[in-house]
Structures are given as structure tokens and as C-alpha cells.
């Protein structure tokens, strides 16, 4: 069982990393966590992003949560903000998509076009 004692050590390491880090902010990953997102499966998606970011040592990437942005039909929604504040909105993001977004967008700098909200919504319109 993990104890709070351990956290003191982890804290020192994290504090040192913050000191070494350059002022430049990295990507910010925001997962929609309102009723609509939660029901669609946003919680394990957020957990998977946290795991991936830590496993790949992406120290300047933050993973956080937000409420509903009004696109409930295509949840879980994940927004990615780059260093300049540009926003990419991904829709219908499930656990298997997390690694793709991390590898291609966060690490490779290339937007995963097929998971963007624009593409997902236009595909739905075609069906209708």
C-alpha cells in the first residue's frame, strides 16, 4: 500500500523538475467532464491521458478537466491547446484514441484530423 510518506519524496523530485523547466509552457489537454462527458466515457479517457503523459515523461504537458462545452452528442470531447493558445477539439475520444493523440499530436505536432470534431460531425451528417 502506498503511503503519504512516499509523497514527500515524489514532491522533491517534482519540485526540482519545475525549477529546471524552461519558462515555455507545453500542451494543455482538457477533457470534458460534465454529465454528458462522464456518461460517454470521459473518466477513463482522462485517466489514460494522465498515464500516457507520465509514462512518456511529457513533463511540460498538463492534463485537466472542464465542464460541458455544448457538444454533448459527440462526447467524450478533448481539447488540446498548443503553446500559442491554438485549440484543436477532438470528439468521440475513447481509450484507444488517447495514445494516437499523444503520439501524433502532442509528441509529433501533427493534428489527428480524423478525430477532430469537424470531421466527426460531418461524418454524422452524411449518415443522416
Amino acid at each position, binding site marked *: 500500500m*502506498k503511503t503519504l510518506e512516499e509523497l514527500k519524496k*515524489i514532491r522533491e523530485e517534482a519540485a526540482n*523538475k519545475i525549477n529546471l523547466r524552461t519558462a515555455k509552457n507545453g500542451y494543455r489537454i482538457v477533457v470534458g467532464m460534465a454529465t454528458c462527458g462522464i456518461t460517454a466515457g470521459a473518466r477513463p479517457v482522462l485517466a489514460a491521458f494522465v498515464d500516457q*503523459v*507520465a509514462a512518456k515523461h511529457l513533463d511540460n504537458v498538463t*492534463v485537466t478537466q472542464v465542464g460541458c462545452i455544448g457538444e454533448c452528442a459527440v462526447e467524450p470531447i478533448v481539447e488540446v491547446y498548443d503553446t500559442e493558445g491554438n485549440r484543436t477539439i477532438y470528439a468521440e475520444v475513447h481509450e484507444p484514441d488517447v495514445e494516437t493523440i499523444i503520439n501524433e499530436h502532442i509528441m509529433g505536432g501533427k493534428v489527428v484530423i480524423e478525430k477532430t470534431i469537424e470531421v466527426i460531425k460531418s461524418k454524422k451528417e452524411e449518415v443522416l
Partner: protein
Amino acid sequence: MVDLSLHILDVASNAFKANATLVKIDIEEKEEYIHITIEDNGCGMNEEELKKVTNPFFTSRTTRKVGLGIPLFKQTCEQTGGSLTITSEVNVGTCIDAWMNMHSIDAIPLGDIGESIFVLVTNPYDVDVVATIRFKEQEKVQFKLDTREIKIILDGVPFSEPTIMVWLKEYIKSNLS
């Protein structure tokens, strides 16, 4: 919602929008029932709002016109013969008191409560979270987590640090099993 842990995450998140500084979640698990209380010290609701809050077509949001969190949780409890009651006072806070009869065929499992607690604890609104779980198994140690204690240890290092986040996730998981 497929399990109670998702309802708990959803309804406890209401505290974030209510300008609360603290949300307390208490879960008592017994063979026959699960009793959940979610209490915040946020802005609270007046009598009129309180009457409307279980109506799915009422919400304080502007992004959409429905508010399903509380109505869905209430339905989940009531379909087992249990109940969900809300008490609230303006500028004092809100308390949700939910009972679910676990012997009912319509009862849903508790689910991955650890992951819900993790998401609540790492909220970006700086709202403190106290979570307690008393398990039905006598031999299982009661779970207790208070972010105010964790903040003292972290001494300024934010919860959003990847290594801290993962540690918290594993800590919660290991203390629940």
C-alpha cells in the same frame, strides 16, 4: 450511468460550479444498502431553485438546456426503493443524501470509485475534497483522503504535475484494494 461511481463524480462536480472551497463525499457500503452523502460549502440554492433541481429541464448552465445529473442519480436510487434528498441553504452549501437498496434487482454496482475520486481530487478549481469510504467487508480498512493534508505535503507543487497526478492515482487505487 452504468455505476454509482459515475453518479458520484457527476453530482460532486456540481460543487465546482457552486464556488465551493470544500466538498465532502462519504460512502457507507453495507450488504443491504449503500448510503452516499455529498456535501459542499458552495453558494447553495434558494427554495425555488431547490424545487426545480430534480427537473431534468432545469439547469443553471448556458451551454445546454438540460440538467440531468441530479435527476438521473435520483432515478437510480428510487428505482431500487431507495431515495435521494437534497438540502440546501444560500451561501452555506448543499447536501445530497442518497440511499440505494442493494438487494433490488435494479441496483447498480459501486464501480471504479477510485477513478472518480482521482478525477475529483485533481480538479482544476482548487476545491478541496474529503472522501471517506466504509466498506461492507469488516476486514477492509476504511478509506480516507483529504486534499488539505496532501497540499501541506506538496507545499506549493501543484496537483497537475504529471508525476504527482500518477502517484495520486496509484495511491488511491492501492488504498482501496
